[in-house]
């Protein structure tokens, strides 16, 4: 009797355990795709990970982080910080974005706010959303006296395009000068990159010959003459010139430290992106060479010492953008050094048969692959990185 009772009780326990066990087991098989990315300071880089030269600044979830000597440091709280650029004295320019407007700030390299450069905060209570403004993609001119940025003026009705403006550092938007005229209903002109010559590189959005909206890298040597922002921008004196074709769909220009090579992102009007390099002589681009073609690449950034290019890309589709490093050897391999050959001359002291002069097969080229620096983070792929030596 007791043994039957024990058997029944044991079976009941076993059933409960197996029922709960299968429930729990299924729970452990979840992929946790929705898990938030790790904070850079908490998880990575892995021990012994590859160390980048200098200090790299990046943003994730509205916070600014620095990566130095293989360690991440959080510089600001997660409070809308994005789109970094260098400021003299190893300081930073950054955009602080809120729900309705954004402003450009100078921050110390340790994340302390030093100064606000724009004032898009509404001064009076105004419920008109169109009375607010965005400032994005700040960059300092070579002489460090002018702030270039994308700013949403002029805007008419529903059209809210970004145009490139140049504002004296310490001045106001009323002192700013319009450098580019954006095409109507395209989103406008972004990513200004002032050159030492005083010219300006930037990304313009326009409708290509097939009416598809594409990006194109432009160069202008002076503030462009204003024009009606129609579907095709005018060319000629007083206007900018395109450096890339519409079908290449290129954006995010980044110049090498010697200013002779441009890295950019080209998508060829598709949902993939290539890291493309081209020589740059100050006015035109040379032949394109795509060095990364199998990743969703964003924000190519040259190391200050020219030792490579850092960029952002997901390791797995849809799983957040990680930091990657492409060493210089991957895109600029050294020229093969001549192999010293010693052929005994006929009639010389060697009596053995003269070896034929068939060239020996060249050793296979060493393929340098990009190095994944972080594993499970989620960097802001629309935020340029900044890098100091």
């Amino acid at each position, binding site marked *: 009797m007791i043994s039957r009772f024990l058997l029944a009780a044991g079976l009941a326990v076993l*059933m409960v355990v197996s029922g709960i066990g299968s429930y729990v087991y299924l729970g452990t098989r979840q*992929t946790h*795709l929705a898990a938030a990315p790790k904070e850079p300071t908490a998880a990575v880089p892995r021990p012994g990970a590859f160390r980048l030269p200098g200090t790299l600044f990046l943003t994730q979830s509205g916070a600014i982080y620095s990566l130095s000597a293989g360690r991440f440091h959080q510089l600001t709280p997660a409070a809308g910080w994005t789109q970094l650029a260098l400021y003299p004295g190893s300081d930073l320019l950054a955009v602080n974005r809120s729900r309705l407007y954004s402003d450009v700030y100078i921050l110390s390299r340790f994340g302390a706010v030093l100064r606000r450069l724009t004032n898009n905060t509404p001064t009076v209570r105004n419920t008109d959303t169109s009375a607010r403004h965005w400032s994005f993609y700040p960059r300092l001119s070579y002489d460090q006296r002018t702030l270039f940025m994308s700013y949403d003026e002029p805007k008419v009705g529903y059209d809210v395009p970004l145009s490139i403006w140049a504002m004296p550092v310490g001045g106001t938007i009323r002192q700013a000068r319009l450098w580019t005229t954006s095409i109507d*209903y395209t*989103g406008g002109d972004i990513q200004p990159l002032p050159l030492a010559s005083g010219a300006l590189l930037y990304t313009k959005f326009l409708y290509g010959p097939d009416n598809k909206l594409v990006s194109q890298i432009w160069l202008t040597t002076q503030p462009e003459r204003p024009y009606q922002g129609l579907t095709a921008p005018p060319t000629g004196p007083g206007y900018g010139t395109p450096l890339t074709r519409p079908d290449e769909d290129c954006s995010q220009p980044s110049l090498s430290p010697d200013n002779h090579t441009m890295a950019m992102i080209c998508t060829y009007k598709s949902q993939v992106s290539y890291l493309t390099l081209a020589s740059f002589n100050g006015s035109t681009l040379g032949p394109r060479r795509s060095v990364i073609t199998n990743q969703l690449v964003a924000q190519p950034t040259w190391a200050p010492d020219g030792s490579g290019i850092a960029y952002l890309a997901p390791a797995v589709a849809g799983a957040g953008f990680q930091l990657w490093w492409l060493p210089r050897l991957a895109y600029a391999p050294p020229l093969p050094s001549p192999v010293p050959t010693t052929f005994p001359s006929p009639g010389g002291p060697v009596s053995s048969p003269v070896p034929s002069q068939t060239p020996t097969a060249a050793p296979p080229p060493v393929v340098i692959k990009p190095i994944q620096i972080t594993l499970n983070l989620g960097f*802001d792929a629309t935020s340029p990185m900044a890098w100091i030596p």
Partner: protein
Amino acid sequence: MAAVVLSSAAGGFAYFLPAVAEALDATGQAVAVPSPTPSSTGLLGSPTPSIATQTPGAFTVLLLGSDNDSKFIGDHVLTQSMILVRVNPATRKVTMMSIPRDLWVPLSTGGTGKIDGAYSYGGPGAAIATVENNFGVHIDDYIWIGLVGLINVINAIGGIDVVTSSPVMDDFYPADITGSNPYDYLRVAVMAGPQHLDGTNALQYVRSRHNDLQSDFGRSQRQQQVLLALRAKATQVSAADVPILAAALKGQIKTSMGLQRIAALLPVAGGIDTGAIQQIVLLAPYTHGCGCAQGYVVPVWSQILPLVRQYFP
């Protein structure tokens, strides 16, 4: 032994029970498709849809996306997004054709109006019948999803990677999801280029149409980009994630597809090469603006119907 197996199965059943309940609730929705009205076929002269699909196994689904915030009463919503999807499991080919929401057509419920109104007058059956009557296609099933459902499902799978084709800037984006007043506006600025989008930002990207020369057509292209990104991310979902997805979509999705067809479709969806998906947006010469205050889009049937016959036989 049998008892242990049974109890394990019971544990599994308990795990999937919420998903099963939601699936039973959302799938297999009965659709009453009104027969074509004489006025609609007569006006257009468009072909009567063939009832049987000509390619064995191939089927056509009408994807519908709606505002379903407090501005609308019950199921009387406009379909802001209408996409015809043709799936051929044998060849693993998919064709997506976006129908402009402002297309001016005879409605299956009577009269003429913008095609996005068909659903609000007669539910999914009216939307299906209107598309069938005008485009000469046979629609096997429909899937309807609300705005919150799209946000939730993208968040439930951890976001999607998209190359946004341009900065999407909108000072008059409806604040009907987040704000207390559904008639309020938000400012939206979705940056351009490759990026990871959460549900809210993805919705802003596909929903905004004010800052786009192509208006609804540009938005249709963005919607197709996001659908393809969703499909790419969905390949990473495991069966154990189904309850989470079901919870995310609770009350936000409806379909006439039965569970059997969905089960048969899932492996096919995973095997489709994204590059082989044909995407169609009915820009000129297929449509043109009316040049009128109502802002509707005029179909050019002599151009549209051959295209439809080619891709939706």
